[in-house]
Every structure is written in structure tokens, then in C-alpha cells.
């Protein structure tokens, strides 16, 4: 609707439209011709006249807006209608003669704009609420709600109450005071909203029982619950003195605001929960980071406890670890508690920490102090005070797999209780802590194991350089009681003959003496069962003893025993360590034994080589036999021994040397040849096998010789070319097969050398014999005179055969008489017979038989007279000699006489070869005599 009016420059109305007439109640006829400012004096008060004058002065059209002026003309009833106006000049030429006022009713538009503006404000408020809700600030989000409610609903004040964890939080619009705490509890309006979950309008608020006490003076209340997902979150109320507050869509707006507020509350809570969660995660991340950097168990416990207390905003905390006594826990670390509490022992029975530890479940209790009192623990007043200030406690076990490593306990602090989520946070912390502890322990174990392996490796190297068994045992014990940290380490070796075990090495870490007896405990069990044995050793400070067997080439030869004075079980690495040490020791002992054996073998081979060298350097029977005897002594280590040479007739053993015997015994033994026909030597000679006698007293074969025969006896033959050349006899038995073999070899080599030496001597002797005989033959051949020849024959015989005297006899009377053809005395001996003397031969010599025998004989006074020697026995008796040699003089196969030699003072030592030589001389003599006779006869003829 619109209307118009025209006025002159003097403000005289010239036209007045019906609209204006209807609006103002001033009829056209009443208005026209009147002064506008007189009819409507408020125009001047509101500056409208200035606008009209401006148009008149400038001739420029002008707009009067509703916003700046509200209205131009009031209605007749005084009501104000939204109006705008356009003022145009009425021109006459270039002169302004009047103004036309064009009035437009814009109340509809205004109303639309007001509603639109209201909705925009509501939207802005909602956007602001949403924005603040996104930011997570509940206070910042709720303040626009109450402000918008108060503003949009034309209320004096608006209030908002949020239920938060059982408590109520109030917000009031700007310039409104917050209600007194506790009011909502007696607030029926709040209760009704909570019950019905629907908005309420209280028109006569001053008299309504629903009106809260702090809003008793208002006229109208608009209230709406804050509901999200069917859950009552709080309420909002707008108080107004005007009923206009409840007009239109006020209720809908309030509901919108309440809905936005409810959504904002949820959003804020969610955001706060997210922030809280982020803070928790950051806290957990900090713990995780701190624990990753921690290098020791102490550091891990320290950081875990510190961060755990901080994470749940706790007042204090402790970490409890298992005590040595399995019935107790021990305070390992405290945070914001007296340091004196560290080390305090808490029983498992009857305590929340014990329950958490045993059940592996978190526990929450009120009043740790009360528990301590109930348990009768003696704690200082300082600790009691500190615990009294922290009544709410959560106990969380930290586990590695199924094993509970300890308990993390956190107190809420003074005047504070834990939230439900705190328990979960502490459990997470405990899990991280457990992982870190497990990692740390694994690392420590690995480091300890590496150190152990290093020590074992070092031990192995040191053992490799050891050549003495006892020293190896000592090294092993020192390593175990030293770097490997055992309280006691002992190495015991067993006696292979069944004697008592010998503790070769015993070492201990501390100064206090630790008893160790191999006949009991783990050592005895290990020796008995030949396996690793663990034994608990009870006592004031219980120990654990572990023993591993030491094997040498598969045989149990000893044990390695360790003790640890800690109330913890031996772990697998411990067992590995002991087993490894025992294995190293066994290997070392084996090596030492092998080294000893090799050394002994080398020494023995050296003895053999030396003997062989001596055989070569001094290839004579005597030294050879002496060498064999001494080498055998070195190989066997016997105390006394002798060597005997088999004589040429293989009837006797002739002593060739002794060792270890007294000189007198040796001289005595050297004088007596031994028979090969009986006794032990005879058996060895016959069987050509060595004989050992362990107990000579019980063996009848043994001929005991005082000062020579020992308790045991061994006789080895020296065999060459299937022939026993000599025997070695010593007072011991051969214990090792190797020695036996070497001894056999030595004897065989000695036998070969002996045989070569004997052959050499024989060759030498035969050569000399041949030389002598050739010399004799040449010497005798050059003599023509019989008497000279006879003397020279005798002189040669005495010289060569070392005779004291000799005679040359010619057989006569058919061999029954012997005519002395020549006599020779040598040295101090006197001639017994005279030349020409006829010596009767009792039985006579068979002249024809002599060539068959063709051998010289020796008779002594002690000999039994053989039939063939009877004539010589008579001569022996006649001359009084010790022994008599008779060699037949055979010429042309007939015995023509005898060459008789005598040893007056001593018995000769002659071999068969000497007899052969004697016979050779006799033969040369016979040949010379025969040849002399032949030449004499030929000369006579």
C-alpha cells in the first residue's frame, strides 16, 4: 500500500491521498491547505522536515528509509506502521515549487525481514554453537546458546544447565547472574523437562509452582530440554516479562537452540573425549618413547612409574616387584612418596597389590593406609601421612606372557578419585612397561650370555694352552667363581681305580668359606647318574648347587660343581654354561692326556732311535745288550733288570749286564750262566714269547735272586731269524700296549743287531784264525829240523791258545803210549814232562777213530771222564793242570800223535771256535811233522 502528498515549499499541503487519509484519519479536505508541520509536528522532531527542505533546496530527490526513520506518518490510533518514503521535487523550470511525498507501507516487508533477520541470527547462533562445539569448548559453545535465546526470544535472561558426570553446570545469558548452586535440585521445571523430554511454556510464571526460585519475578518462561539420542543432557529456560516472547515460532526457535545445544554438548564431549584420548595416546607415546630410550630395568621402572602417575593425573605411585620370599612383594620404586618406602615389603595375602599380583588382574581399593594398619606393617609416620593423602589406589599387574613381573600402583591424590578409564590407561602403561622390561631383561640376558660365552671362550683358549690336568681344573674353577660369578666352583676328578674323588680345584667368589664335599649333594648325584644335577641347598641363605659331569673320551672322569647364593632358579643359560665349562674341561683333559701320550710316545721313539743309533755306532754284543737293557728300562721304567745272552750251544744264558742292582749282586749274577732248559727263561726261550709275572712269589717258574727279583717280572726274548738270541728280564710288568710293542720292537732290533755283531765277531775271529793258521803253516813249512819244528809248534800253540805249557806227543804202541817229542813251558810254568818220556794212555787212543772226530777236546778236573777222554784225564792228573787241551795230529787220515796243552792256574774260557783253532794248529803241526818225516825219509832214501 502506498499513498502520496504534495506540499509547497512552504509545507502547505496541496494534495493528500486516500491512503494517507485512511492512515492518519485526516480527510483530504481537512489536510489540503494546511501546513504539514503543523498537522504533524513530530515530523520536525524526527528530522523529516530537514529531508523535505533538502529536496527543496537542492532539487534532488531523496529517499527516506524505514530502517533510519521507521515511519513517516503514525496511524490515527497512534500505532506505527513501517513506512519508507521518496521525496521528489516539483519543478517549474529550474525552480523547485514543491515536493511530492511518496509514502509506502513496508510493514509486510519489514516483518519478513525481521523474521528473516531472526532466522539468520538463529542460524548464526547455531553456526557459532557448532563452531565452538567443534572446537570442543563447552563453555564457548553454550554461551552463544543462552545469548541467542535471550536475544531471539526477547527474553530478559536465558539459562542453560548441562548435566556433566552427575553434576550440573550452569550458563547464563549476558548480564544475567548464574543461579545459586543446588537450585536445580529443587527445581520442578527442570524435573518436568527431564521427565517429559518436551518443551514447556509457563505463561503465569510468577504464580506457577514450576518456576524456579531464582525466576519468581518473571511473567513468562520458555523451557526446552537438551536431548540427544533420547538421552536427557540438560535444560534451557528463557525468562521474559513480555508475552511476546512466546509468540510466533519462539518455541520452535528455542527447540532449535536446545537441539543445537544438545548436539554441541555431545560434540564437545566427543571432542573432549577425543582430546583426552589424544592426550592419553600422547602420554602413552611419551611412555613408549621414554622406555625405548631406557637402558636398564631401573630406568624403565622409573620412567614407567613417573609417566603412569602423570598420565592419570595421579598423586603418587609405587612399583612392586616380587621379593625373594615368594610370600611378599617389595616396593622397588616410589613416585611422590617418601623414598624411605622403597624396600618396604608388602605381603601377598590380604593386600590389593598381592591380589593384583596373584590374580594377574587390576584391582582398585580405597584406603591403602587402612590395609597397612590391618596388616600390622611397621611403617614410618611420614609414609603413613603420605598414604593418607592418597586414599584411592589402582593396582595393575605387568605381565610377560603368563608371568607376572610385578605390580604398578598409582594413588589418585588428595581429594580426588580415579575415573573408570584410568584403570585402562594404567593397564596399557603396564603392558608397555612389561614389554620394555622383558626387552631389557632379554637384552641383559643376551649381554650376560655374551659375557659368559666370552668367558667360556677365554677359558677354552686358556685350557688349550694348558698341559697339566690339575691346572686345567683350576682354570675352570677360577673362571666359574670369577667372571661367571658363581659363589662357589669346584672341580672334582674321580679315581679310576675306585678310590675317593679328589677335589682338584675349589674357588669361591666371597671371603666366606663355603663347605664343599664331593661325596654329597649335586656332585655325588652327578657322579652317580652321569648327568647334570640341580640340588637346593637349604640354610639361612638358601643356595642352589648344580653339577655337570666331565667326560674324557666318553668316560666320566670328574665333575664341575657350582653354587649360587641367590633365591632364583638356575636358568637354561646357567645350565648351558656349566655344561659347556664341563665339556671344555673334558676336552682339555682329553687333549692333555693325548699330549702326554704323544709326548711319551715321542720320548719312547727317541729312546728307540737312540738305541738304534747305539746299535749302529757300537755293534758289539756287549754294548748292544746293554743298550737294549737300558732302553727297556727307559721305556718301562722298571727298577731292576738284566740281559742274558744265549750261548752258542743254546744251553745256557750268559749274563751280559744288569741295571738297578747292587754291584755285588751284579758281579754275583755275572758269574753264573743260567740254564735254558727249565724255569721261566727256558719257557721264554722255547715259546719265543714274552712272559709277565705279576706276583713272582706265587709263580714257581721264577728263580728268585736276592737283590734282583722284584714283586713282578717280565722277560722278553730278543729274536732274530726265528732264533732267540738273548733275554731281557726286569722287575715290573708292562702296563701299556704301546710300550709292549715298542719293547718287542726294541728287542727284535737288538736281536738283529746282536746277531749281526756276533756274525761279525765270528767273521773276524775266523779271519784271524785263518791268518794265524796261514802264519803257522808258513812258519812251520820253513823249518827243516824236527826239534826246531817241534818247539816252534809248541811255541805257536802256547801263544795262540794262551797255554801255560804244551807237549807234542807221538803215538806209539798202537796208541797206548805217547812219546813226548817236545815240551814247552810258558811263563812261570815248569815243564812237567821230559822229551822222550813215554806216557801211557790208559785206554789208548783209537788211531783210526781220530780222523772221524778230528776235533780237539778239553778236559778239566771237574769233568766226568768220557770214554774218549780217559787218556787225557790220566795226563791231567799226571801234570796237575786245571784243564788240558788235546788235539790229534792227523796225517794222511791217521792220528800220529797229540798236541797237548795245559792251563795250570785257571780254567780257560774257550769257545768251540777255540777248539777248532786248536785243531787247526794241530793239523798244521801234523802236516809239518808229516812233511818233515816225508822229506827225511826221502832224503835218507
Amino acid at each position, binding site marked *: 500500500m502506498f499513498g502520496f502528498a504534495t506540499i509547497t515549499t512552504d509545507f502547505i499541503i496541496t494534495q493528500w491521498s486516500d491512503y494517507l487519509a485512511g492512515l492518519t484519519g485526516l480527510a483530504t479536505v481537512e489536510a489540503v491547505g494546511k501546513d504539514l508541520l503543523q498537522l504533524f509536528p513530530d515530523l520536525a522532531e524526527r528530522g523529516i522536515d530537514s529531508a523535505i527542505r*533538502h529536496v527543496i533546496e537542492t532539487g534532488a530527490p531523496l529517499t527516506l*528509509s524505514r*530502517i533510519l526513520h521507521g515511519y513517516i506518518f503514525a496511524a490515527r490510533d497512534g500505532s506505527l506502521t513501517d513506512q*519508507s518514503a521518496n521525496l521528489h521535487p516539483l519543478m517549474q523550470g529550474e525552480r523547485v515549487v514543491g515536493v511530492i511525498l511518496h509514502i509506502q507501507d*513496508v510493514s509486510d516487508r519489514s516483518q519478513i525481514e525481521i523474521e528473516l533477520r531472526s532466522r539468520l541470527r538463529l542460524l548464526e547462533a547455531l553456526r557459532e554453537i557448532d563452531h565452538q562445539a567443534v572446537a570442543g569448548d563447552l563453555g564457548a559453545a553454550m554461551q552463544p546458546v543462552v545469548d541467542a535465546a535471550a536475544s531471539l526470544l526477547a527474553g530478559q535472561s536465558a539459562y542453560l544447565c548441562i548435566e556433566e558426570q552427575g553434576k550440573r553446570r550452569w550458563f547464563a545469558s549476558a548480564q544475567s547472574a548464574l543461579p545459586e548452586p543446588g537450585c536445580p535440585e529443587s527445581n520442578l521445571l527442570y524435573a518436568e523437562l527431564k521427565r517429559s523430554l518436551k518443551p514447556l511454556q509457563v505463561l503465569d510464571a510468577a504464580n506457577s509452582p514450576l518456576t524456579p526460585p531464582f525466576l519468581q519475578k518473571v511473567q513468562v518462561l520458555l523451557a526446552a530440554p537438551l536431548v540427544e539420542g533420547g538421552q536427557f543432557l540438560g535444560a534451557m529456560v528463557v525468562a521474559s516479562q513480555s508475552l511476546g516472547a512466546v509468540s510466533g515460532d519462539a518455541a520452535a526457535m528455542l527447540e532449535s537452540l536446545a537441539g543445537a545445544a544438545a548436539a554441541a554438548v555431545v560434540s564437545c564431549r566427543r571432542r573432549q573425549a577425543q582430546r583426552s584420548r589424544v592426550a592419553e595416546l600422547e602420554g602413552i607415546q611419551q611412555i613408549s618413547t621414554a622406555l625405548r630410550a631406557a637402558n636398564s630395568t631401573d630406568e624403565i621402572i622409573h620412567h614407567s612409574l613417573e609417566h603412569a602417575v602423570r598420565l592419570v593425573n595421579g598423586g603418587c605411585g609405587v612399583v612392586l616387584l616380587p621379593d625373594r620370599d615368594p610370600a611378599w612383594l617389595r616396593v622397588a620404586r616410589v613416585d611422590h612418596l617418601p623414598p624411605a618406602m622403597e624396600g618396604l615389603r608388602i605381603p601377598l595375602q590380604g593386600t590389593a597389590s598381592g591380589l593384583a599380583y596373584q590374580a594377574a588382574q587390576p584391582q582398585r581399593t580405597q584406603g591403602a593406609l587402612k590395609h597397612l594398619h590391618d596388616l600390622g606393617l611397621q611403617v614410618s609416620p611420614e609414609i603413613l601421612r603420605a598414604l593418607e593423602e592418597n586414599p584411592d589406589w589402582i593396582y595393575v599387574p605387568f605381565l610377560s606372557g603368563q608371568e607376572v613381573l610385578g605390580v604398578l600402583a598409582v594413588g589418585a591424590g588428595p581429594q580426588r578419585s580415579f575415573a573408570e578409564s584410568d584403570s585402562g590407561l594404567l593397564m596399557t602403561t603396564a603392558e608397555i612397561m612389561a614389554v620394555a622390561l622383558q626387552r631389557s631383561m632379554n637384552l641383559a640376558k643376551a649381554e650376560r650370555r655374551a659375557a659368559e660365552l666370552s668367558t667360556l671362550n677365554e677359558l677354552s683358549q686358556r685350557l688349550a694352552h694348558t698341559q697339566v690336568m690339575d691346572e686345567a681344573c683350576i682354570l675352570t674353577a677360577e673362571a666359574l667363581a670369577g667372571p661367571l660369578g658363581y659363589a662357589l666352583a669346584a672341580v672334582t676328578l674321580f679315581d679310576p681305580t675306585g678310590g675317593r674323588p679328589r677335589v682338584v680345584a675349589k674357588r669361591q667368589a666371597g671371603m666366606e668359606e663355603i663347605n664343599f664335599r664331593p661325596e654329597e649333594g649335586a656332585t655325588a648325584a652327578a657322579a652317580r647318574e652321569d648327568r647334570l644335577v640341580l640340588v637346593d641347598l637349604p640354610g639361612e641363605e638358601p643356595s642352589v648347587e648344580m653339577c655337570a659331569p666331565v667326560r674324557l673320551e666318553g668316560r666320566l672322569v670328574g665333575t664341575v660343581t657350582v653354587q649360587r647364593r641367590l633365591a632364583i632358579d638356575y636358568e637354561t643359560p646357567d645350565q648351558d654354561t656349566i655344561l659347556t665349562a664341563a665339556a671344555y674341561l673334558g676336552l682339555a683333559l682329553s687333549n692333555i692326556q693325548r699330549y702326554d701320550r704323544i709326548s711319551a710316545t715321542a720320548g719312547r721313539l727317541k729312546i728307540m732311535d737312540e738305541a738304534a743309533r747305539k746299535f749302529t755306532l757300537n755293534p758289539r754284543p756287549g754294548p748292544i745288550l746293554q743298550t737294549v737293557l737300558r732302553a727297556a728300562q727307559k721305556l718301562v721304567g722298571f727298577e731292576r733288570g738284566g740281559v742274558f745272552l744265549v750261548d752258542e750251544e743254546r744251553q745256557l744264558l750268559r749274563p751280559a749286564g744288569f741295571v738297578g742292582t747292587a754291584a755285588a749282586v751284579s758281579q754275583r749274577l755275572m758269574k753264573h750262566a743260567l740254564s735254558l732248559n727249565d724255569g721261566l727263561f727256558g719257557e721264554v726261550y722255547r715259546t719265543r714269547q714274552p712272559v709277565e709275572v705279576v706276583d713272582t712269589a706265587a709263580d714257581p717258574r721264577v728263580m728268585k735272586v736276592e737283590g734282583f727279583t722284584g714283586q713282578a717280572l717280565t722277560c722278553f726274548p730278543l729274536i732274530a731269524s726265528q732264533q732267540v738270541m738273548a733275554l731281557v728280564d726286569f722287575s715290573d710288568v708292562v702296563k701299556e700296549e704301546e710300550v709292549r710293542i715298542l719293547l718287542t720292537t726294541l728287542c727284535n732290533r737288538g736281536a738283529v743287531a746282536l746277531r749281526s755283531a756276533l756274525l761279525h765277531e765270528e767273521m773276524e775271529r775266523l779271519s784271524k784264525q785263518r791268518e794265524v793258521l796261514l802264519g803257522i803253516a808258513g812258519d812251520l813249512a820253513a823249518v827243516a829240523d824236527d826239534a826246531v819244528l817241534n818247539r816252534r809248534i809248541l811255541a805257536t800253540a802256547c801263544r795262540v791258545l794262551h797255554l801255560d805249557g804244551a807237549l807234542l806227543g807221538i803215538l806209539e804202541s798202537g796208541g797206548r803210549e805217547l812219546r813226548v817229542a817236545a815240551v814247552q813251558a810258558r811263563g812261570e810254568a815248569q815243564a812237567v814232562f821230559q822229551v822222550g818220556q813215554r806216557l801211557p794212555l790208559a785206554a789208548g787212543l783209537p788211531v783210526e777213530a781220530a780222523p772221524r772226530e778230528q776235533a780237539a777236546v778239553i778236559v778239566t778236573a771237574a769233568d766226568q771222564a768220557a770214554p774218549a777222554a780217559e787218556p787225557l784225564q790220566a795226563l791231567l792228573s799226571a801234570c796237575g793242570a786245571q784243564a788240558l787241551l788235546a788235539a790229534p795230529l792227523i796225517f794222511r787220515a791217521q792220528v800220529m800223535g797229540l798236541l797237548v796243552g795245559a792251563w795250570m792256574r785257571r780254567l780257560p774260557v774257550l769257545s768251540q771256535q777255540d777248539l777248532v783253532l786248536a785243531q787247526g794248529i794241530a793239523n798244521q803241526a801234523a802236516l809239518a811233522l808229516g812233511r818233515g818225516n816225508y822229506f827225511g825219509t826221502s832224503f835218507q832214501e
Partner: protein
Amino acid sequence: MTQEDKRMLLSPSQQDALSELVNIGFGRAAASLSTLVRQRVLLNAPVVSVHLLDDLYQQLSFDQAEVATVHQIFSGQISGDALLILDTGGALRLIGLLTDEPAPGGRLTPSDREALMEVGNILLNAFIGSFGNLLKVHITFAVPRLRLEAVTDLLDTLAIGQQEIRYALLVKTRFVIQDGQVEGFVALVMGIESLDQFFNAMEKAGYQV
């Protein structure tokens, strides 16, 4: 050529005379506005300059692309286009300051536009009217129009159909109302002939130009 160089070169006396004239006009406009809205309104004109129309775009620096313009054509011995140019935010703030009620939503309602047109109308009338009085020239005004458009569109509109070279007398304007203030521009766009007559009229009126 710099922005400074693109200004129409005015002698110092011309610059002083123009500034004096503008300040007088703004003083009267502020008085008229204050009377009409029954509030104390101050109008400052810290910078006065003359530019080629083609270069005007570079002088109109606004935070927002869209501007609210109260456009009033004036004619007579001096003719041209008078414009009050505010960016949309500035226009809303100005309405808020005048009504003591911030406009929600960031948009001008029809009533807001009406009020803005009233402010621009009175400002431009008073400003240019004071010129006429001071320079003793008769100026008539067309009905004002409010436009919401981009600056480029505005300048295109001013250039369409004009054959002669056009200049703009640009006055950086600051409204000071209560505790707040809003900045904008008042521009008088004239052809070379009108501008020449403008300066002649100033000279005749005793201004040393």
C-alpha cells in the same frame, strides 16, 4: 608508469583548492546526514585525487569483489556520475552502525539497501550541492540507484556510451559513527569538458587553481 604517475597531474594549488572544496562539501554532507539520521556522523576525506576512468579500477581497493554503489547522475553546467562506493561488508557495517543493530547473514536486505541508498543519496546531494553553491553553478540530480555488482561491471557501466575521455575525482571516504568507522570511496566521474568547466568554475569562485 606507476600508479602515482597515472594520476592526473594537478598543480599544488589545484590540489589544495580541490581538497578544500571537497572538505567543505563533506562537511555539509556530514551535517545533512547527521540531521537526517539523528546521529553524529563524521566524514573524513584524507585523500583526494583525479584519475582517468580507465585507471580507476586500480585505485578502488576492496577486500571483497562485490561492491554496493549508490549511483546518482547529475547534470547542468557540470555533469557526470556521482558514486558512493562501499564493499558489501562496509555497507553492512555502515547500516549496523547507523541502526545499532548488526545485520545478520552477510547480506543486504531490501530495507538495508533502502537505508544505504538514503545515506548515499544525502551524501552525494549534499556533497555535489555544496559544489554548486560554492562554484555558483546549477546542478540537477537524477533519482539515485543502488547497485550491487563487481567493480569491473560498475566501471564498464560508467564507460558505456561515452565518447569523450572521462576522469574521476576520487575521494577516499571514512564514515565515523559512534565508535565505529567504515571506509569507502566517493567518486565524481566527469568528461574532460565538465572537468574543465569544474576547474574554471573553481577559478571563477576565487580558488587558486
